[in-house]
């Protein structure tokens, strides 16, 4: 049993939990330990990345189609075999023609027209834009583009003429594969995958879509414009590409179809993922996880924060809470785009190196938390990393600051001010910078100030960044207490020149959005501008330039402009009917 009782953790359970981080193993009296279990070699991870049956069906279908196409080129006599079969079916259909049926088939043939397909595609695109489901949108465009390339390439490569029957319907271009059938199939495929959550709704839609595509095929065969093999080999890749693109690049488990607006970076922690997290926490940390729920989602876009409820053996408190952050590739990409955006907007304030994988991202945050512990910086204690899907999803488990309040909501007295400024001093002394000092990340827990959300922190920061950390902390405190008092308190740990440098380095863009908003309200309430107030108190110091141009920033800005121009061209081209959408 651990007997560590650090002063910053309240209560017996808290003191017991505190020992976890120190030793990185879980042997705590009140926690009900279920024992760790090493995953044997070859056993699937908790949440394996799988295509499942439908995915494999389409992969195998795709392989068969490719083999058939290859056979057309390698064994040319197979072309006659296909043609013979096709012609048998077409001649039989030709014999069934009558005026009435022909009218019906003419009407059904309109299902393959651009006037039917394009509105469906654009409606889907607009829905995805409305709900800001960009990943689904890119998946849709990617699938359409792939099918267009595939169909156009095969049309020219195979160069198959139309059937040698009496063709009574309109047609354009080569026969194989059938472009209208492929176009309709991929359209329905991407609609099903991007608009309908997995389940009955999507299954019904896909079944209906298959029926409609089937009707188009029947119409085209009846009218003699396609061979049966053209139509089938148009429909199959249409559906297959749509399903595979979404399963591989927009998996439902990571990018759920949620038809509501708002922050969508968070993962669904129910269902298979929820079960996998429970299993993984039990296996890898040896803790029995009773429940997990999203916690404080609105304050976090870089991960999915969770509150874990774990079992305790203490009869007075049978449950204990832990905090966890679930990281996935979505969050990794968000982090990358965030850094690109910061580089374009803010210039090269510091080197912003992207993480190469989710594993590296989580390892880094865990490492920073450990460094903070080592430097006696009060922060949430890390308990370990849990692997959910190798290289794709990880959980970082830490102490849960039960009852903690944001500094913006807590009572800020002299002790709080002193602790907060001491934290910055310790960060400076330890060669660390938090880089995101704002009210939401400075918590007051049982009268003790703690830093959270250290994902942006860095080791050996630039002096500029350290100065900005100090200014941001003084702004956070100044919003809640007399600025003169905060300045005086700062002089206990920093020289007047340090403070002067901090405010010379700080301008609008270096202040986190939350602090900027709070400051705006502060000024609107008739209070003086805090930045100017602190600058006036500190010795004079020339402003430190923030906007700095580098080759990387120039390249990224040029790339962003070009990307926007390309996108505008793409939209215009497709709206005028020339593009592939």
């Amino acid at each position, binding site marked *: 049993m651990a007997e560590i009782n650090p002063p910053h953790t309240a209560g017996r359970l808290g003191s017991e939990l505190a020992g976890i981080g120190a030793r990185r193993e879980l042997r705590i009296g009140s926690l009900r330990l279920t024992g760790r279990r090493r995953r044997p070699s070859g056993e699937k991870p908790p949440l394996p990345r799988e*295509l499942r049956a439908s995915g494999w069906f389409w*992969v195998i279908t*795709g*392989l068969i189609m*490719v*083999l058939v*196409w*290859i056979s*057309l*080129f*390698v064994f*040319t006599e197979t*072309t*006659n075999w*296909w*043609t013979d079969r096709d*012609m048998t079916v077409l001649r039989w259909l030709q014999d069934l023609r009558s005026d009435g049926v022909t009218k019906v088939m003419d009407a059904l043939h309109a299902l393959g027209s651009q006037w039917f397909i394009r509105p469906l595609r654009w409606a889907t695109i607009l829905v995805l834009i409305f709900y800001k489901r960009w990943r689904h949108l890119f998946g849709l465009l990617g699938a359409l583009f792939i099918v267009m390339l595939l169909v156009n390439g095969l*049309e*020219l*490569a*195979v*160069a*198959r*003429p*139309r059937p*040698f029957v009496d*063709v009574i*319907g*309109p*047609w*354009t*271009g*080569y026969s*194989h594969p059938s472009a209208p059938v492929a176009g309709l199939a991929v359209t329905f495929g991407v609609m099903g995958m991007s608009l309908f959550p997995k389940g009955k709704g999507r299954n019904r839609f896909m079944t209906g879509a298959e029926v409609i595509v089937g009707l188009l095929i029947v119409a085209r065969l009846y009218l003699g414009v396609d061979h049966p093999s053209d139509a089938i080999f148009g429909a199959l890749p249409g559906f297959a590409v749509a399903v595979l693109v979404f399963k*591989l690049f927009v998996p439902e488990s990571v990018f759920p179809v949620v038809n509501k607006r708002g922050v969508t970076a968070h993962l669904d922690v129910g269902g298979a993922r929820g079960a996998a997290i429970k299993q993984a926490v039990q296996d890898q940390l040896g803790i029995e996880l009773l429940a997990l729920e999203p916690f404080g989602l609105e304050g976090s876009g870089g991960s999915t924060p969770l509150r874990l409820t774990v079992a305790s053996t203490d009869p007075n408190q049978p449950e204990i809470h832990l905090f966890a952050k679930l990281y996935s590739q979505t969050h990794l990409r968000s982090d990358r785009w965030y850094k690109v955006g910061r580089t374009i907007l803010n210039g090269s304030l510091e080197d912003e190196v992207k993480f190469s994988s989710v594993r590296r991202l989580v390892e880094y945050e865990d490492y920073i938390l450990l460094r903070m512990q080592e430097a006696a910086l009060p922060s949430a204690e890390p308990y370990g990393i849990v692997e959910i899907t190798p290289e794709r999803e990880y959980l970082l488990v830490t102490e849960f600051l039960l009852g903690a309040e944001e500094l913006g909501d807590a009572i800020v007295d002299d002790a709080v001010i002193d602790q907060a400024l001491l934290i910055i001093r310790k960060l400076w002394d330890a060669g660390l910078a938090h880089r995101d000092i704002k009210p939401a990340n400075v918590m007051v827990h049982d009268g003790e100030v703690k830093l959270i959300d250290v994902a942006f922190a860095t080791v050996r920061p630039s002096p500029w960044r350290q100065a900005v950390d100090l200014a941001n902390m003084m702004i956070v405190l100044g919003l809640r207490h007399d600025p003169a008092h905060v300045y005086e308190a700062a002089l206990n740990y920093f020289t007047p020149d340090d403070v002067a440098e901090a405010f010379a380095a700080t301008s609008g863009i270096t202040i986190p959005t939350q602090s900027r908003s709070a400051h705006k309200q502060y000024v609107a309430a008739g209070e003086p501008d805090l930045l100017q107030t602190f600058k006036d108190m500190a010795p004079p110091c020339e402003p430190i330039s923030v906007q700095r141009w580098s080759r990387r920033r120039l390249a990224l800005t040029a790339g962003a402009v070009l990307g926007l121009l390309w996108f505008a061209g793409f939209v215009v081209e497709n709206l005028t009917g020339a593009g592939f959408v």
Partner: protein
Amino acid sequence: MIRRALVVLALALAASACGNSQLGLSVPVCPADPQVISAFSGAIMLEMQAVETAEFVPCLNDLNAGWSYEDLVPERGLSRFWLDSDRLGSHFLEVTLTPACDVSSASLAGGRMDDAVTEFRDVELIGSNVTIVIVPVTGQPAEAEHARSIESELEARQINDRNVFVVFDTSDDPLADKVAVAARRDRPMIIVDEQDALAKTATLQMPGESQSVRGLELNDLLDRLDDLLPKPSFVGTWYRVFEGGCITYEFDASGPGVDRLAGDVEDALGLFPAAEVRQALRSAGLLG
């Protein structure tokens, strides 16, 4: 696993694209032997299907260096493709097969066509050579000398991709008659009088224009010619009419090489009898 499968698929597709087969005949090449037409291939067959009544379909023999074929776009009732050239421009020729066409604006042309084909042409050719007439007004030595210096400047250069040839009109005809003759022959005229000889200037009279431009120094003269002389071009339409169909050749070519374009196109584009394709298909059991 998935990535490996995708790589295998990509390699397989690439390999198939390199395969030796009768497939991939998306270019309407004039077949040496119609019997080689596969049931699964053929731009020629698709053209035939587009205009089922046509006795001939357009096809390609050897293309000139720098020419390329682009896109066969067939649909029911029409088939079209284009030729591009690095010197004559993109889509310098559009070839369209239709069941019929209106030839009222064109003139009957003789040529190397099959007896079953009647050809009409409505084409305007601006050749690669241009002749400029220089007229020394009085024939005084100073005028002649200045005129010779203009001649040597003109012949030393190309204007708008056109080779310049200079002729002197020293006849005793009145100047107005000389201007009228040059205009009739579509030739620009440069007039040099005594004053021009002294000032090293000239007067430019472009064919079809009522006003001349006087007092042009040599550089201004050359600039003005550059602005006013059209590039060599071949613009217009040929029609080849036959039983059940018509092929329209729409030319919009400009640049060097237009003088030979008519002959080059006659060599590069052929007509293939649809009856032979039908016979081949009947032999293969594909047509009843």
